């Protein structure tokens, strides 16, 4: 039995992109409008005439936080969209009877919610940037400041090249894997359920650590010390990579167990 055929996978991915293009287009359009409006409101649109670049830069500083929050929120939780279109019996029948292996279907959907969402965010931001620059040049006699350039200057780590980008990408994959798992596990409002579970897990783990440290310091003569930072960072990456892989694997196993009728609030 051929569990991964590249040609068949290509057909699955093509079909998925066509069937879900409305979703990605509406996401891209919505984000473009948001970024464009944010950028336009920062360039003093009600004042027509020359304006100093520094003034625009200072205004961008005011909205930078919001842009980064929205950008990173969608980037983080976008994974929950993995099977958001399979919310009724009819779409499940279409998907589950499609003559392709579960692995091909899952990988296609995973690529859609990782690369697809990233591309959507990137395209929407770039288009919004172009729109605000054009409007700025029209209103302020040729003066323009690029939002993208401003963000790259504000976060020098991004400009440092492949090494920094790969760190961001690995961190993105880890967060994405959590929401992919949540998106496959929960049937209703998966993004919210995943956030609630993460919050509860974080609270429990934090309380456990605090309790342990309190016990050690309160009732023993031991002291806690963290290992050398040189050893710590590769170890963090290893643990992150293991958990990322585990999350994607569990999400795949859950995807394989999808059934056309399920009365529970989770997909098991």
């Amino acid at each position: 039995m051929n569990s991964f055929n590249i040609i068949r996978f290509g057909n699955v991915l093509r079909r998925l992109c066509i069937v879900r293009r409305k979703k990605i287009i509406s996401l891209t359009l919505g984000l473009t409008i948001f970024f464009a409006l944010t950028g336009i409101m920062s360039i003093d649109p009600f004042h027509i005439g020359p304006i100093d670049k520094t003034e625009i830069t200072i205004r961008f500083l005011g909205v930078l936080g919001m842009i980064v929050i929205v950008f990173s929120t969608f980037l983080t939780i976008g994974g929950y969209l993995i099977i958001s279109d399979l919310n009724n019996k009819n779409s499940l029948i279409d998907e589950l009877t499609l003559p392709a292996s579960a692995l091909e279907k899952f990988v296609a959907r995973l690529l859609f919610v990782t690369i697809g969402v990233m591309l959507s965010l990137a395209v929407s931001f770039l288009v919004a940037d172009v729109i605000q620059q054009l409007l700025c040049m029209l209103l302020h006699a040729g003066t323009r400041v690029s939002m993208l350039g401003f963000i790259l200057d504000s976060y020098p780590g991004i400009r440092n090249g492949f090494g920094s980008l790969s760190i961001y990408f690995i961190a993105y994959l880890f967060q994405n894997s959590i929401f992919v798992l949540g998106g496959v596990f929960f049937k209703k409002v998966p993004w919210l359920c995943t956030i609630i579970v993460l919050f509860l897990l974080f609270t429990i783990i934090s309380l456990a650590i605090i309790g342990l440290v309190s016990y050690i310091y309160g009732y023993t003569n031991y002291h806690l010390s963290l290992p050398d930072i040189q050893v710590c960072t590769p170890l963090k990456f290893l643990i992150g990579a293991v958990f990322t892989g585990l999350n994607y694997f569990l999400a795949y196993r859950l995807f394989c167990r999808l059934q056309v009728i399920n009365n529970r609030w989770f997909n098991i």
Partner: protein
Amino acid sequence: MIEIKDLHYNYAGSKYNVFDGLSVGLDNNSIYGLLGRNGTGKSTLLYLIAGLLKPKSGSVFTNGMEARKRHPEMLRELYMVPEEFELPAISLESFIKIHEDFYPHFSRETLERCLSDFQVQGIRSLRNISMGQKKKVFMSFALASGCELLLMDEPTNGLDIPSKALFRKIVAGNIPEGSTLVISTHQVHDVEQLLDHIIILDNCNLLINASTDEIVGRYEFGYRMPDQMDNNILYAEPSLQGNAVVALRQKDSPETPINVELLFNAAILGKLK
């Protein structure tokens, strides 16, 4: 083709067993009518055969492969037309292009012929067409897929009266050679002339699992006046033409056309020997 052994199934959270040890085999190259009252598990059985549901215990093998594993090799020889479905809001040509490559025996010629026979050949976009038109397009695609196993759940629901007659003609004329078609329906009059084999389910039991030849060889169907009723009659119901009856066929009696609705009512009431 389809082998079901000791099948047990109930929906999560429900104590009611839809199937409780069902065993049945379906052969190649036949048209099966799957009948039963509401809630007896007709659609559930189709979903189990297609691997869309997983049995609690027992096995369902489709084309020699375990259905619940949903192997691509099994799925490319299986096409399901559910009772309700959605078509994506794209052009018909796009829909064909994104799906035809998954079915190695897909035939554009058959598709064009079915669309023409269903009188929907002019449809270009799936966006703003009626439910009946969507059903015709979907069924045309199912027949054109060339799959060895076609599963149809209430295929004539939503079709206008002329289209129900067309449905029989189009299915009979375009079903792939050697294929098996399983039709689950309440609208027995729409499909009874197509059927080679009848399966009747009721309360987890298989009441009838016989070919139409066996049924007409064993039973006769007709109308009798009150003074013509005799001991061979197993079941009768009043009608405008007298009593519609199911009786044991006598050796020398000619075969009578099967009345599936009458057979169904008799079977449900336990009147058949």
